[in-house]
């Protein structure tokens, strides 16, 4: 068989048609990944602009740039946008693009569900920002405590937008998580046993399992709050036998695992980048993998540390304090694994690697002030002050944004086919790193001086003024750093050097195909017989894996190899569905339901539900395919 003809035929089989139909109906995971990345970056920009406006308001005492009401909506939208609509979706974007490439598959286990996940994510963001444009955005903070967020103190549509937009997002995240799990366990290339999986899979898998088990808690609390607002039910209302703390329990049972959901995939991306730029395989692969999983498991047992100041029994709180301290151990394992790998390697100081070093630095600071806030006496001093604001930003920017920037410098050349400028990249890193620390380190001090979080302004003479100026300047410098990244990205599209299949000389499968990869990913399904399939010969293992020769399986039907969950032995041939507009139409119906529920237009909600039923039925209506015997 001449491979050229096979590649042409595979291309014709897998490519997405042009035009509007192709755009709406495509199920290509690379298209889904690109859209996730772009959309999440737009939300990052929106949240960033909100932060800039907040810092303009706080730059001097007794400032009246914003009204208290506008400020409340602003900080709530900033928190929700960054935590829910940026931090997790951007990781999904990278994982959506690279998951099948990491494991040597042609697409996800459920390509249509994958596209559905993207469309619902987009629509949930549209629903949320509709509220902002209409002036009724959520305004009680991203964790939205009752009774302040209850119907008595928060009349109006604001809370309806909060509940329903987030509920739609949980649908998107849940189906995405299920897709990741099934793909990781069923579609790995033959020979890729769990002990040979790229480490990036462990972070995304752990986060996906956490999503499956933690998101329902958010759904329950959102449903309760929505029913209180719309139908006058009682869950959090003491007079009727409810308890406000029920909200806090349900919310944090979800939201602490969520912290790990938005950092563990990023940590595991770092575990892919460090070996490449240390020029050696990672040391302590098993420890790192188990550390990530252990962090995810422990993450379910620490939620009460967000509630130390609520008057719970000290005995109960002590257990959660101990649990919170225990998380230090697996996270420290990860850090030592990277440091030892770098120590024993020959590190190349690329921009991606600089971001990794920056991340390790910020992770340690964020981790150490996490030890402060995780111990009950210190927490009572600093809770609800800028100390906590500083901690959350060290953790989320340090462990989410910096690794993602590292991942962008590392993997975007695979997506665009063009390298970004290393010179501009180093400027990008240092401006962001300095801006980050200037903005957020002094906030610790503000917190210790007693400045509460979420106040729209403050009086002069409290000793906060100078520090707030420094913080605002740091925030603007940080934003400038993000702009440098955007500049570098567009420069690379126009004038960047061609990347080639493997610009960093890495070891994993995604670098074995062209940049950008063809619609079918790999011409042949690779066979994997080590952890570093592209480095085997130089590691003295001899040639074990077969990356460029192997089974095509079929160039007439969209199929891939299905393997056994643990050992990765060939088990079956899996068929893929054709492109379809049903995922888009179903997501559109769900958005109609959401608007109906928010505005109380029951006809719209019911109509959306009926349409959703018919679209899902059409989606799943497979006529039997002819099978050759």
């Amino acid at each position, binding site marked *: 068989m001449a491979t050229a003809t096979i590649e042409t035929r595979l291309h014709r089989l897998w490519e997405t048609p042009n035009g509007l139909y192709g755009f709406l109906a495509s199920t290509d995971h690379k298209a889904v990944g690109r859209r996730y990345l772009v959309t999440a970056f737009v939300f990052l920009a929106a949240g960033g602009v909100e932060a800039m406006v907040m810092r303009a308001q706080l730059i001097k005492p007794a400032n009246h740039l914003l009204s208290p009401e506008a400020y409340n909506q602003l900080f709530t939208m900033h928190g929700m946008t960054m935590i829910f609509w940026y931090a997790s979706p951007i990781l999904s974007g990278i994982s959506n693009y690279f998951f099948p490439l990491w494991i040597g598959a042609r697409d996800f286990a459920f390509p249509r569900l994958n596209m559905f996940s993207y469309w619902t994510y987009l629509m949930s963001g549209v629903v949320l920002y509709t509220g902002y444009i209409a002036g009724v955005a959520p305004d009680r903070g991203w964790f939205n405590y009752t009774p302040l967020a209850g119907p008595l103190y928060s009349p109006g549509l604001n809370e309806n937008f909060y509940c329903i937009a987030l509920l739609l997002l949980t649908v998107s995240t849940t189906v995405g998580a299920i897709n990741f799990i099934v793909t990781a366990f069923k579609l790995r290339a033959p020979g890729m046993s769990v002990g040979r999986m790229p480490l990036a899979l462990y972070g995304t898998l752990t986060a996906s399992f956490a999503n499956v088990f933690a998101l329902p808690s958010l759904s329950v609390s959102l449903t309760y709050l929505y029913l209180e607002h719309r139908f006058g039910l009682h869950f959090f209302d003491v007079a009727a036998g409810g308890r406000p703390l029920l909200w806090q329990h349900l919310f944090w049972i979800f939201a602490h695992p969520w912290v790990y959901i938005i950092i563990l995939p990023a940590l595991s991306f770092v575990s892919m980048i460090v070996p490449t730029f240390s020029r050696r395989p990672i040391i302590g692969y098993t420890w790192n993998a188990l550390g990530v999983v252990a962090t995810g498991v422990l993450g379910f047992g620490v939620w009460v540390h967000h509630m130390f100041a609520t008057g719970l029994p000290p005995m109960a709180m002590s257990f959660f304090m101990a649990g919170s301290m225990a998380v230090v151990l697996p996270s420290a394992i990860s850090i030592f694994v990277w440091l030892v790998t770098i120590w024993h390697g020959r590190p190349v100081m690329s921009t991606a690697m600089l971001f990794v070093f920056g991340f390790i630095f910020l992770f340690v600071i964020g981790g150490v002030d996490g030890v402060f806030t995780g111990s009950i006496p210190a927490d009572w001093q600093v809770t609800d002050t800028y100390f906590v604001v500083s901690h959350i930003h060290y953790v989320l920017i340090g462990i989410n944004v910096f690794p993602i920037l590292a991942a962008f410098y590392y993997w975007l050349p695979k997506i665009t086919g063009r390298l970004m400028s290393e010179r501009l990249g180093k400027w990008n890193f240092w401006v962001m790193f300095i801006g980050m620390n200037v903005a957020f380190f002094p906030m610790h001090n503000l917190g210790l001086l007693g400045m509460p979080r979420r106040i729209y302004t403050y009086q002069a003479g409290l000793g906060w003024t100078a520090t707030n100026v420094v913080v605002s300047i740091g925030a603007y410098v940080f934003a400038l750093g993000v702009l440098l990244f955007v500049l570098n990205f567009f420069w690379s599209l126009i004038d960047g050097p061609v990347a080639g299949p493997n610009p960093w000389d890495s070891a994993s499968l995604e670098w074995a195909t062209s940049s950008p990869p063809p619609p079918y990913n790999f011409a042949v399904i690779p066979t994997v017989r080590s952890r570093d399939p592209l480095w085997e010969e130089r590691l003295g293992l001899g040639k074990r894996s077969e990356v460029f020769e192997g*089974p095509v399986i079929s160039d007439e039907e969209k199929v891939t190899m299905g393997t056994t969950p643990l050992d990765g032995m060939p*088990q079956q041939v899996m068929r893929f569905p054709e492109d379809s507009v049903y995922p888009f139409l179903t997501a559109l119906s769900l958005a109609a339901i959401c608007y109906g529920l928010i505005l109380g237009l029951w006809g719209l909600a019911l109509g959306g539900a009926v349409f959703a039923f018919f679209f899902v039925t059409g989606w799943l209506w497979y006529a039997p395919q002819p099978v050759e015997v």
Partner: protein
Amino acid sequence: MATTIVQPGGTPPAITLPVNGRPHHTAGWWGMVLLICTEAALFVFLLFSYFYLDAQNTTWPPPGPPDITLAVINTILLVVSSVPARLGMKSIRRDSRGGLSVCIIVTMLMGIAFLIIEAIEWSQKTFTPQTDAYSSLFFTITGFHYAHVTVGLLMLLVILLRNRAGHFNARRHLAVENTMLYWHFVGVVWLFVFTTFYITPHWWR
């Protein structure tokens, strides 16, 4: 049996693999299992709220322990409805499409009866969802379960129509396996809802 020849380019001899394998090896079956995991977690958190407020209130449930007659009938109905569901799956494994249709219809009738009896029970309650926290939880949690039974019935309806369209045979009937698995789950989760709302108030007081 549907097969595709796979030719690994190297040392192992060419092997033959089934297309889409056995039902429990397919991605679709794994997807349904994970959906059930997340739905089960949903009910865990719903019932957690119930027990949390139970522990926090001195009088619980405020109207006194509920009458269990209709709920017991419903429990028997839903648990027994798993039997025709199971038989339907066995029929299609033996390639009996008629048997599958009959079993789906019987399962659906039992499910519909469940919904009617549940609605009767709701209408007999002396409280409304707005009365207090207990009544809100009662209607919300049984309402969640009601919605799950309704979705299960819609799934049964779709596989009934697909069966009539000739989509299933002894080898290809993953949608049937998945729907029946979901139906069993709806029955099992009701046992937990039933125990929580109808047994524990009698048992603990």
